[in-house]
């Protein structure tokens, strides 16, 4: 594999693993959400994300093998998406921070030099626009709701806040793809991102948490302890009965 090909595969894994792991996380809510309607909303978002992962991992290689036969160190998702669901407010905080970033990224990938990424982005951007909208609406209602919902929403944001810098980190692999016009430079929309999040928080009557020591590493396989606990139930069947079909 030539260097640009390796970087492209790495990029597809990063984007695909983001969607896969967050999709798996959200599906943990199935049957447990605060209301039947919210259960359906979260499952819909999860299914959109798993659909995105299928396309991205399928472009990177064999989607099933990549999803079910890799171990923690080989996953390239950002640390934000593997964070625990916590309560509904923490899930909402994570979704707001991720979907807003993903939406801005996909808008830029629509003018990538890579034909697959353009086609993928123009389909996924509509799904993610809705995820972002839904997460924003819930953040506003919880933040500007009761004392308890506001406290929970603030706690959820506080948990997720330290994982934002990783979303805008540019390493060598990403830089080489940006140079060839395939990847989008996240730093170009960091300011837009910060002000979009601030706008939602101010409507929600919430303070942005103070910036904390950033935690990075997901893009190179250094994950938090939570990822292994996601993979165990997700990969159990394929690990126990390799290549089982149904």
């Amino acid at each position: 594999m030539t260097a640009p090909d390796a970087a492209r595969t790495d990029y597809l894994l990063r984007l695909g693993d983001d969607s896969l792991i967050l999709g798996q996380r959200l599906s943990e809510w199935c049957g447990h959400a605060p209301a039947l309607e919210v259960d359906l909303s979260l499952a819909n978002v999860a299914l959109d994300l798993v659909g995105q992962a299928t396309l991205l991992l399928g472009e990177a290689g064999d989607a099933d093998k990549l999803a079910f036969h890799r171990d923690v160190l080989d996953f390239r998702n950002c640390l934000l998406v593997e964070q625990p669901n916590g309560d509904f407010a923490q899930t909402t905080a994570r979704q707001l921070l991720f979907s807003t970033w993903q939406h801005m990224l996909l808008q830029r990938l629509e003018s990538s030099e890579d034909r697959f990424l353009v086609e993928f982005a123009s389909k996924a951007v509509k799904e993610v626009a809705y995820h972002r909208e839904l997460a924003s609406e819930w953040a506003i209602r919880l933040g500007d709701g009761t004392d308890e919902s506001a406290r929970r929403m603030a706690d959820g944001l506080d948990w997720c806040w330290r994982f934002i810098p990783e979303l805008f980190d540019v390493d060598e692999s990403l830089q080489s793809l940006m140079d060839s016009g395939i990847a989008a430079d996240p730093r170009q929309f960091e300011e837009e991102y910060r002000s979009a999040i601030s706008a939602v928080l101010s409507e929600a009557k919430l303070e942005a948490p103070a910036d904390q020591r950033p935690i990075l590493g997901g893009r190179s396989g250094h994950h938090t302890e939570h990822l292994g606990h996601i993979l165990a139930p997700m990969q159990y069947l394929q690990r126990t009965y390799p290549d089982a079909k149904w």
Partner: protein
Amino acid sequence: MSGDWPLWEVFVRTKGGLSHRHVGSVHAPDAQLALAHARDTYTRRMEGVSLWVVESKEINASDPDQAGELFEPAENKIYRHPTFYDIPDEVKHI
């Protein structure tokens, strides 16, 4: 949680459908989230191109006990249906 929320009636206009049809109801804290819940509950299989939600308490319904006086008188007035005319073959588009 959803027990605290008001009920909303959901109307969907389908692809090619001319009018919105009642499809069911959802719980939601306000109109905007009612639309989101309606979208996630009733339009997941490409059924819809337009959605209406209206809070159930805003709907005024006829009294089932009055069904006799309201609707039965129409049943024996067949002359209100235009079925007694012979239409000449030359007339098209009827």
